[in-house]
């Protein structure tokens, strides 16, 4: 079998599965970098939280609605775990169902975000209204972009699996996508708390 591990497997035949180890190390490093990316944007938001100029402020947030969409996103982490579990047991058929479920939950969250953005624009909050608006849209927008990339990766996994081209040693790997997906969810928990719930 041919894979990216061809370079390493000679050197590490005795240390478990090296390909996973190499890729996961890289993934964790990447997620560490992402944490600082969101950290900088969250700091910007905190700086401008009350800099609302003549525009609307945090009072336009619809907490019940966003709580519901947050719940949807959190549930997608559960289906992601189930998908990963099925793939590890070699049951790709069942795994695909959970992957599709995860992607659908992610898409639902994105739809909610688009709805929410539209509402806010109607109520007069745009990126040019105030530094508050700029930092809110940048932070949640970049997070939404990450969810969208995640949905794309999940769809590619389903596609590869359907075509019989999925292999746990391949570059597209359920475990790695799961790591990414959980990270994006955790970031949302922070964003939801800091942006929507925290009153300062």
């Amino acid at each position: 079998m041919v894979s990216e591990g061809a370079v390493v497997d000679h050197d590490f035949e005795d240390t478990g599965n090296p390909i996973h180890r190499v890729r996961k190390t890289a993934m964790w490093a990447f997620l560490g970098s992402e944490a600082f990316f969101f950290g900088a944007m969250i700091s910007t938001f905190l700086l401008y939280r009350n800099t609302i100029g003549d525009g609307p402020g945090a009072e336009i947030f619809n907490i019940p609605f966003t709580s519901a969409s947050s719940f949807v996103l959190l549930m997608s982490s559960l289906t992601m775990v189930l998908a990963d579990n099925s793939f590890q047991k070699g049951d790709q058929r069942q795994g695909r169902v959970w992957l599709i479920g995860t992607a659908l939950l992610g898409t639902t969250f994105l739809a909610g975000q688009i709805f929410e953005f539209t509402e806010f624009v109607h109520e007069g909050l745009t990126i040019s209204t105030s530094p508050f608006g700029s930092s809110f849209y940048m932070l949640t927008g970049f997070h939404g972009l990450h969810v969208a990339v995640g949905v794309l990766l999940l769809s590619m996994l389903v596609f590869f699996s359907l075509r019989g081209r999925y292999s746990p040693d391949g570059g597209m790997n359920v475990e790695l996508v799961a790591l990414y997906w959980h990270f994006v969810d955790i970031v949302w928990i922070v964003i939801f708390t800091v942006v929507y719930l925290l009153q300062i």
Partner: protein
Amino acid sequence: MAVATREQAPAAADRGVWSWITTVDHKRIGIMYAVAAFIFFLVGGFEALLIRTQLAGPNGTVLSAEAYNQIFTMHGLTMVFAVIMPIAAAFQNYFVPLQIGARDVAFPRINAFAFWLFFFSALFLYTSFLFGGAPDGAWVGYAPLSTQLTEYVRMDYYSVGAQLLGVASLAGSINFIATIFTMRAPGMSLMRMPVFVWMTVVTSFLLILSLPVIGVGLWQLLFDRNFGTLFYAAQAQGDPLLWQHLFWIFGHPEVYVLILPAMGIVSEILPVMSRKPLFGYAFVVFSGIAIGFLGFGVWAHHMFTAGLGPVAEAGFGLATMLIAIPTGVKIFNWIGTTWGGRLKLTTPMLFSLGFISMFVIGGLSGVTHSIVPADTQQHDSYYIVAHFHYVLFGGAVLGYMAGAYYWFPKWTGKMLSETIGKWHFWITLIGFNLTFAPQHILGLDGMPRRTYRYDAGLGWDGWNLMSTIGSYLIAVGVLVFIWNIIRSWRNGEPAGNDPWDGRTLEWTTSSPPPVHNFDEVPVVHHVDDFWYRKYGIDEDGRAVKMPEVSGGALTVDTDTGGEDGDADAHDIHMPSPSYFPIIASAGVVILGAGLVFISSGAIGFGLLALGAIVSLWGFMGWAGEPITKEAH
């Protein structure tokens, strides 16, 4: 011990331009980094000469104010992002896998992608001279200066160019982290790794944690300029100071990114040329890590004149003083390494000693910045310019020159000329000090930096002239270096595998190494493992050269019994060449170009569409392509 370079007879497919474009071999990528960095070094050096010519006397007329702003901004951006970072990447790419006994990096194609993205982004930054003008707001790009004048795209080039170079560097760093933590040879525990590898670890962590912060700042800058956001708009209570924080949270770790690999190189050269082990290996390693940690907590010492308040200023001042401790530890360790050694004053050793002495001067002027009232006087004066050139030229550049002389034999199989090398060293050292020492005095006399002309009679004329003469002397030194490279490449002395009596694994393999680096993966038992294979220790604790076993088999670890070495090599699957990384990186840079011109309507959107198609082609092809093709 003249071990002939084993002549590789590469197949036709392994030569030619196409093989370089599609290569995923870490050694070739390292060489491409080096060549690209050197070309940009000449370009950035030319810009420096323009600056010095303009400032040679009062009321210079070589450059207009507008041209001067672009030239000094591009000089800074070039030297930081397109010279020192990639030359460090060149050494890291070539030697980290060799020093840890690996056959390649963890992700060969990501490695190629990172190189091409760097190279295209740097070229892209230079196309700004043709389309709309080069960035002209200094490499620090302070808002609100950088967010104004949106009818020019100059600072859009800055925002996008730095962003792309950052992504390239991020990809490279993640690759190094994965390589070093998972692909070391058996027995190569973390505390047996060469210091250069350790410094690569620290540098990579600094980069992956600091680049995203400036990334956010650069996006905010781009959005402010093009989409009407208000991050740095003071008239809407946006805070330009935010940019300074985001920039320097990246910018200060960045200066350690520039210097730590050079420190690693010097830590490799000094033990070899002193014929002693590195004094206090663990101390040097942990000092490097400490510098990395502290480097994240001192950024605001660049902002002492911004009005942060006494508490913040005192805190950051103290943290800055603290960082002198691990740095000082390293310097004393290097001195301890040479102490009592039988020194070989070769060119790499001279450059290393030059590095230490010049870096000490730069470090000491750096400590003066931690004293807030003094820094307030020095801020934005030529004193600062003198300081950071002492650490970045006298430190980093001399360190990388030392590395070039030390490792050139491994790259090419030929020695660089020692005679010309010594001329190169002394001309560079004298020229450097002549250029930058007077700038301390100019700064203390009140000459502001980033000024395109000055009046006569301020007492600055003589020092400026001296500085300009020095800069031309540096240029002569660079020409001598080029001459040395060309001459030695053609008919330099053959180097053999181990010309310096080295201590680390890269010297166990042939020069240049075979594609797969090692026929047999080495097993490591010590720090400086190769030295222990060559030397034993007698009762008095003195090193004794061990008799060479059967025709230099000790030094030629790769030659497993002569002819059948190649039979071994046959079973090693190396990753196949791929042209998808270069396509993907080109696509990403075209996307970047689209962002620069996004406010110009059709051109911007056209470029964005083209970039999206090209990068999608590159990435999809990449994802569908097996790394080692079956048909071999």
